């Protein structure tokens, strides 16, 4: 039987069947036929996800990917935000935390977390996407596997311009180095212009302190730019008149474009993906609401188009308000499937007039050596006669 004391601290653990369940609630109770005959746990100090829900990130050695196909709306639950770090997740005591800003400034300064929280604050909803967010190796890939390195949160913090105003950035400073306090002491060089545009120093995510995996207690946030530049566990900013050419902006996060290597490729180009129907779902003939998300690092999404005939014709999907700048935007398209084999796909169009390209258009622009970073081709799903949905991989090398 359930006791109040036992359920006040609900824990999640893995059962012998590998399922995540609440420690205080035996599986027999979860399977209880009639919840109107059993008194449940009292109010708790912290909420839990239903033990019937098993939504998880997909992990690899270096990252874990958001289960896009399992989400509703456009806010990613913080514990399902994708992760990419270079030497694990550090433990940083917020009481000892300090941010140093120095270099080409009039007043080199140190700010504690308490200082940062006293500055005028701003909240903003935007996506964060790793520029390596692309897989297309086989038919049996889920949206999470294809492009689960994108997530969206409401971030709260102080505008970087507010801090730059405080330290007095010198006119000749054109770049700044952002450095993390993890074991990688990871660094990126960022043009100062981004600080005056919309860069933030954030300490909160979806209403609470940033999660350790997202940079606790403080991270840089560069809306619309490749996720690596939003340096987590931020400890230092140094103003400079040139970039530092760090490892992450030379040997990584660069990519072949014809006979050259493209560097400092910051903005994430417009992209979309249908998250339903998608592999491994099986659908039935009749009405299907095609659903998905679209986003652009260059601004707002203005239109998402759907094709249900392998790209021959396109129709506008309905966008879910609010449509925000540099943010995941929900789309829906009601479609009656007649049971014939077909391909469905979506393409995002942003306010700059850019239309999400096909893989072939990317090859034409970048050459066959392209790959690795900033891949945003249209994703197609094949719907077979039996209703099974498969990803359509395309080769280009």
């Amino acid at each position, binding site marked *: 039987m359930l006791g109040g004391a036992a359920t006040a601290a609900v824990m999640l653990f893995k059962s012998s069947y590998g399922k995540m369940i609440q420690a205080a609630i035996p599986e027999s109770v979860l399977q209880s036929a009639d919840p109107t005959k059993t008194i449940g746990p009292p109010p708790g100090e912290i909420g839990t996800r239903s033990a019937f829900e098993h939504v998880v990130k997909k992990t690899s050695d270096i990252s874990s990917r958001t289960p896009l196909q399992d989400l509703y709306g456009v806010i990613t639950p913080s514990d399902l935000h994708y992760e990419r770090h270079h030497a694990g997740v550090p433990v940083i005591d917020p009481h000892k935390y300090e941010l140093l800003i120095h270099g080409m400034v009039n007043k080199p300064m140190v700010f504690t977390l308490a200082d940062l929280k006293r500055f005028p604050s701003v*909240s*903003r909803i935007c996506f964060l996407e790793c520029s390596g967010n692309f897989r297309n190796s086989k038919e049996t890939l889920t949206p999470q596997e294809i492009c689960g390195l994108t997530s969206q949160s409401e971030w709260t913090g102080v505008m970087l311009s507010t801090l730059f105003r405080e330290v007095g950035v010198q006119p000749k400073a054109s770049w700044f180095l952002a450095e993390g306090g993890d074991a990688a002491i990871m*660094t990126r060089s960022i043009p100062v212009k981004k600080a005056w545009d919309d860069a933030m120093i954030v300490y909160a995510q979806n209403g609470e302190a940033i999660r350790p995996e997202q940079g606790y207690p403080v991270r840089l946030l560069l809306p619309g730019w490749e996720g690596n530049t939003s340096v987590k566990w931020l400890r230092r900013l140094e103003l400079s008149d040139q970039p530092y050419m760090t490892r992450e902006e*030379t*040997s990584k996060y*660069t990519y072949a474009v014809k006979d050259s290597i493209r560097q400092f490729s910051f903005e994430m180009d417009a992209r979309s993906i249908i998250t339903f129907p998608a592999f491994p779902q099986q659908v039935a003939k009749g009405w299907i609401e095609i659903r998905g998300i679209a986003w652009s690092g260059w601004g707002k999404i203005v239109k998402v188009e759907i094709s249900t005939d392998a790209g021959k014709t396109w129709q506008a999907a309905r966008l879910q308000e609010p449509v925000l700048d540099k943010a995941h935007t929900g789309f829906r398209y009601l479609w009656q499937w007649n049971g014939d084999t077909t391909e469905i796909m979506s393409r995002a169009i942003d306010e700059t007039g850019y239309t999400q390209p096909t893989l072939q258009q990317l090859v034409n622009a970048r050459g066959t050596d392209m790959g690795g970073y900033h891949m945003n081709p249209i994703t197609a799903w094949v719907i077979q006669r039996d209703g099974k949905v498969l990803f359509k991989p395309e080769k280009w090398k």
Partner: protein
Amino acid sequence: MLYGYMLCMSCKHNSNSTMVLQDTANWPATFGLGRPATQAEIAKLDIDVRPDGKGLPPGAGDAITGKTIYMAKCAACHGTGAEPMDVKLPGPALMNDSAGADRNKLKTIGNYWPYATTIFDYVRRTMPYNAPGTLTDNEVYSLTAYILHASNIITAQTVMNAASLPKVTMPAKKLFVPDNRHAGPEVR
């Protein structure tokens, strides 16, 4: 007000423009928060090295010394260079003997990295992976020299120090171009 944003209604939100998030008109010259940084605390954290050599510390090293350090502290993950191509190492292979030849084969320091100073900066800040920040500056100079020599970029006798390292020209540097994408319809 939209989700806590303060929208400036007078400015047009055109392509790639930035929405105004705050009204700063009545702000004071300073909020008086934070404290001045001391030179000592700046020096403690200021470990970055730029391509022009700014930030390189005193000290020196060569490839012969570097090879011994590499075999002891790096080879377990990055390989000795003798492994067959199909052996999966815990870390990426750092060297091959095709400096500048074909970047499409295996991206290594010799054929892909545009600046030699980046080797020093990166190795010092985060290597070895299982004991980051434990190498001395002389060890880092030696390792940098060894990697450059094993990539056929410098001779075994060339000493790497704050003066010589920024002068090393990497074969891949000429390939790097800044991003030429811009806001608009063109796919690039």
